[in-house]
């Protein structure tokens, strides 16, 4: 392709072809052009450009300005926007959900475009805090277009969309982090800042894990509302299954419920969930147990035991790692021990999950399994180091022998050459 373009294929012909292609391809998107003729040149908020609108999923599916705003785009100038032509003008905020719902709640209609798309958004929206307040006449709350955009609306699967997993938290924060805007609602405005410090945010942005939770994962999207105190655990359990199962069987569940404490959040916080460390079980600033428990009671003893177990296994795994690192850096092949070391690390992770049962004997099982593996890999590392030393001793021995041979050769050469009165070197060849 490259080559025949460069080899003097008539440039003008290519240009002509390109123009024809663009015109034919663009014909469909050009349909609502009489609206855009003016609106492209107007100032915001009345401005809608062709560039924006051509990106809109609705425009791409063949909807026009008139689909939402009414009017007759085939007529010129103000005739197009006459009441007679059914022109509705700017849609009032409190009418937007119903307007979108005209199509999006109609299963039969939506099936023609995307049969797998849900059609319960409007119903859900009415259950959300946003929806309830809108009915009460509060137009400051979010309606469809605040999150999805308007005129250049992209599907959630498009990474440029405001509601794609990477962008949705920022979209929510546009209102929820604005202290001025949120005044009077009596809820905090630091959720976004807190979330940005959380391990979930890190998983999303640093590791690029789009499955990591963001605002709608816990709060819902169209039915957005804070999960109730009792349902927090159910929300977390969507991903953290084992932890939830163990917590369910533990004594903490009833205790937290009776004290109206929000389950997981008590220890892990909500928006700024940080990567838990073993120090949570300690007595320092990160420690959580001793906020409620008294020093020296049976729970404090269990806490200390579990912490000690985790510390022990963590130390054993790290010690084995160190030995293997030394062995590897001195050229020994320890890839098998490395593989086993992964299992020891798995045991440690498992033990940390088992903490949520708050039963020392269950934790102890995982710890012992891990310690056994770590002891084995540590021994394998030591064996590799011993083997390395054996090799070096063998090398020393053979180098010694080589030196003896060299010395012997040197003396022997001297001997035969002095013996023969330097005949060896001085004898003339010719």
């Amino acid at each position, binding site marked *: 392709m490259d080559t025949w373009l460069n080899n003097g294929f008539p440039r003008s012909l290519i240009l002509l072809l390109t123009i024809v292609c663009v015109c034919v391809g663009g014909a469909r998107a050009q349909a609502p052009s009489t609206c855009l003729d003016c609106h492209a040149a107007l100032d915001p908020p009345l401005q809608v450009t062709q560039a924006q609108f051509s990106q809109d999923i609705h425009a791409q599916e063949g909807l026009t300005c008139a689909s939402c705003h009414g009017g007759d785009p085939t007529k010129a100038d103000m005739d197009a926007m006459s009441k007679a032509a059914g022109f509705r003008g700017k849609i009032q905020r409190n009418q937007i959900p119903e307007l979108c719902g005209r199509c999006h709640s109609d299963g039969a209609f939506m099936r023609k475009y995307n049969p797998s798309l849900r059609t319960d958004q409007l119903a859900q929206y009415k259950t959300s805090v946003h929806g309830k307040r809108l009915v009460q006449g509060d137009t400051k709350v979010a309606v469809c277009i605040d999150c999805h955009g308007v005129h250049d609306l992209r599907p959630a699967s498009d990474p440029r969309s405001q509601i794609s997993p990477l962008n949705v938290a920022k979209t929510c924060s546009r209102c929820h982090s604005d202290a001025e805007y949120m005044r009077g609602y009596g809820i905090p405005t630091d959720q976004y800042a807190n979330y940005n410090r959380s391990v979930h945010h890190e998983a999303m942005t640093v590791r690029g*894990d789009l*499955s990591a939770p963001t605002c709608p994962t816990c709060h819902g999207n169209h039915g957005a509302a804070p999960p109730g105190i009792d349902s927090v655990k159910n929300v977390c359990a969507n*991903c953290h299954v084992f932890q939830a199962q163990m917590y369910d069987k533990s004594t903490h569940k009833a205790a937290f419920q009776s004290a109206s404490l929000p389950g997981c959040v008590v220890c892990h916080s909500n928006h700024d969930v940080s990567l838990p460390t073993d120090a949570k079980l300690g007595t320092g600033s990160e420690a959580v147990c001793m906020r409620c428990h008294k020093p020296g009671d049976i729970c404090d003893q269990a806490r200390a035991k579990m912490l000690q177990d985790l510390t022990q296994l963590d130390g054993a795994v790290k010690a084995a790692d160190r030995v293997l690192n030394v062995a590897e850096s001195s050229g020994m092949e320890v890839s098998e021990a490395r593989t086993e070391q992964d299992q020891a690390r*798995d045991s440690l992770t498992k033990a940390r999950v088992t903490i949520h049962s708050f039963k020392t004997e269950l934790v102890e099982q995982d710890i012992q399994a891990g310690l056994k593996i770590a002891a084995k890999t540590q021994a394998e590392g030591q064996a590799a180091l011993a083997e390395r030393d054996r090799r070096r001793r063998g090398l020393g021995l053979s180098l010694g022998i080589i030196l003896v041979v060299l010395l*012997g050769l040197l003396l022997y050469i001297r*001997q035969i050459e002095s013996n023969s009165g330097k005949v060896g070197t001085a004898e003339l060849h010719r």
Partner: protein
Amino acid sequence: MVADPNPQPKPARRRMIKILLGGGLLGSFASFIYPVLRYLVPPLVADLGGDQVIAGKTDELRPNTAKIFRFGSRPGLLIRNSDGSYRALSATCTHLGCIVQYRGDLQEIWCACHNGLYDLNGRNVSGPPPRPLEVYEVHLRGDDVVVSRKREA
């Protein structure tokens, strides 16, 4: 002192050099031969497998159960279906690398770490996993269940 008019080395010295050289040469040959002889002794384990491994015995698994086996440096999951047939997949979850397990009650493959689910063809069905699990080939050879990596087309 009068210089020795005949600078012949003393016989004792000559013998010493001979012993030194001869001994050294013998010693060095021994140090070459010894590793070679040891090298020739076949090790107890016949090989390290490669892209094929015996994952288990046919009488080991009951239908609708599974086990983890070692495949190279990574774990694999050998499943015996309810109808008695076998299936083998990579056991490393494609999300964060946890080890997946077979759930007989769901007849699906489950990762406990973040509730990821795969179907029996390794396809990521729900939860965070971004990619399917690698599926291996299973053959029965006598009593052995042999798992091998699929050949590149």
